[in-house]
């Protein structure tokens, strides 16, 4: 009888814990056929690549597109139904979708922009204002 009660309790607990699980994030697809590196590599190591490139850019002036945060934001931009870019405060944002699931805070967007914008290209100045 005791074993039977334990089995019922275990079954009950497993059902409730399955129901309480956080749903897997729905990750939007970026532009183009593939990322600049293999997806599984990027999942594990993207922060290191970005950080390495950050120092290369800041201190040495190397401004290649691979591994640059600006390029990540551009390729992985997500638009809402109205056609506007979604900010990182929204879970539909490419970065936020996983980071909110994993409960890892993103510090990048305290300073860096989280969406591409038309003013990033030097249009006004190129035309001589």
């Amino acid at each position, binding site marked *: 009888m005791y074993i039977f009660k334990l089995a019922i309790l275990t079954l009950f607990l497993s059902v409730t814990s399955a129901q309480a699980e956080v749903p897997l994030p729905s990750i939007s697809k970026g532009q183009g056929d593939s990322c600049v590196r293999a997806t599984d590599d990027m999942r594990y190591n993207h922060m290191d690549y970005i950080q390495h490139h*950050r120092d*290369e850019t*800041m*201190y*040495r*002036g*190397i*401004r*290649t597109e691979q591994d640059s945060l*600006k390029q990540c*934001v551009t390729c992985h931009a997500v638009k809402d139904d109205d056609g506007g870019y979604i*900010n990182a405060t929204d879970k539909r944002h490419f970065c936020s979708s996983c980071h909110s699931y994993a409960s890892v805070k993103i510090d990048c967007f*305290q*300073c*860096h*922009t989280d*969406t*591409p*914008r038309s*003013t*990033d290209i*030097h249009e*006004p*100045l190129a035309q*001589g*204002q």
Partner: protein
Amino acid sequence: MSEKEQVNLTRRNLLGGTAAAMAGLTIAPGIILVETAQAKPKDQPVTDAVRWGILININNCADDCTGCVDACQEENGWGKGSSDESKSRPDQKAQWIRKVKVTDRETGHAKTLPMMCQHCESPPCVDVCPTGASYKRIDGIVLVDKHICIGCRYCMMACPYKARSFIHETLTDQRSYAPRGQGTVESCTMCVHRVDDDQQPACVEACSSTFNSAMIFGDLNDPESKISKELARHGGVRIRADLGLNPGVRYQGIYG
């Protein structure tokens, strides 16, 4: 030296001479293509072969003109170029570049001049920074690594030019090439993103293309650059030269 080496040397001299001639190529009256010899591939690091500087002739700087300030705000997304800092007082808000009025007390002669980070050779902001966030790039541009800036503002106190500002508010919608964030110090970057892309800083471009052509940007190390030639010919003043900081920004039209 073999004959082949001599030939190569001659070729190199010829190419060098052509590049030097290209450096000041005049496209049309008033528009001069400068610094074409400085082209740097995107994947190559900057070197100490160049030292960037700006020469400002304040006699050409109109008192009521704020072209350089407006261009900087639009380019780097501060002041009128941003929708942020609504809660800050005017003296708390970002000031990467500002117009300053200087008056000779004896004669009463007054002129305005643009004042920004002077990109010192020996920057006091770098000396005092406790985290190493304040740094001078190898080509002479003084910057803040905001990733390690703790916002202590020692650099703001150390700077004799009052060139730096502190961001008090949460910002959004920054320019992708000019990240700015709450709790960090910032200042003129000499438009480092544009310089790396072989362009001139936004202030210099705005001044030369639209307004009074009071500013020249270029390589102080290159005796053939326009800025070096102008400095050799007419001289230039370092503001607070007594401090021995050797700023990269020089002025003409102010004395002692």
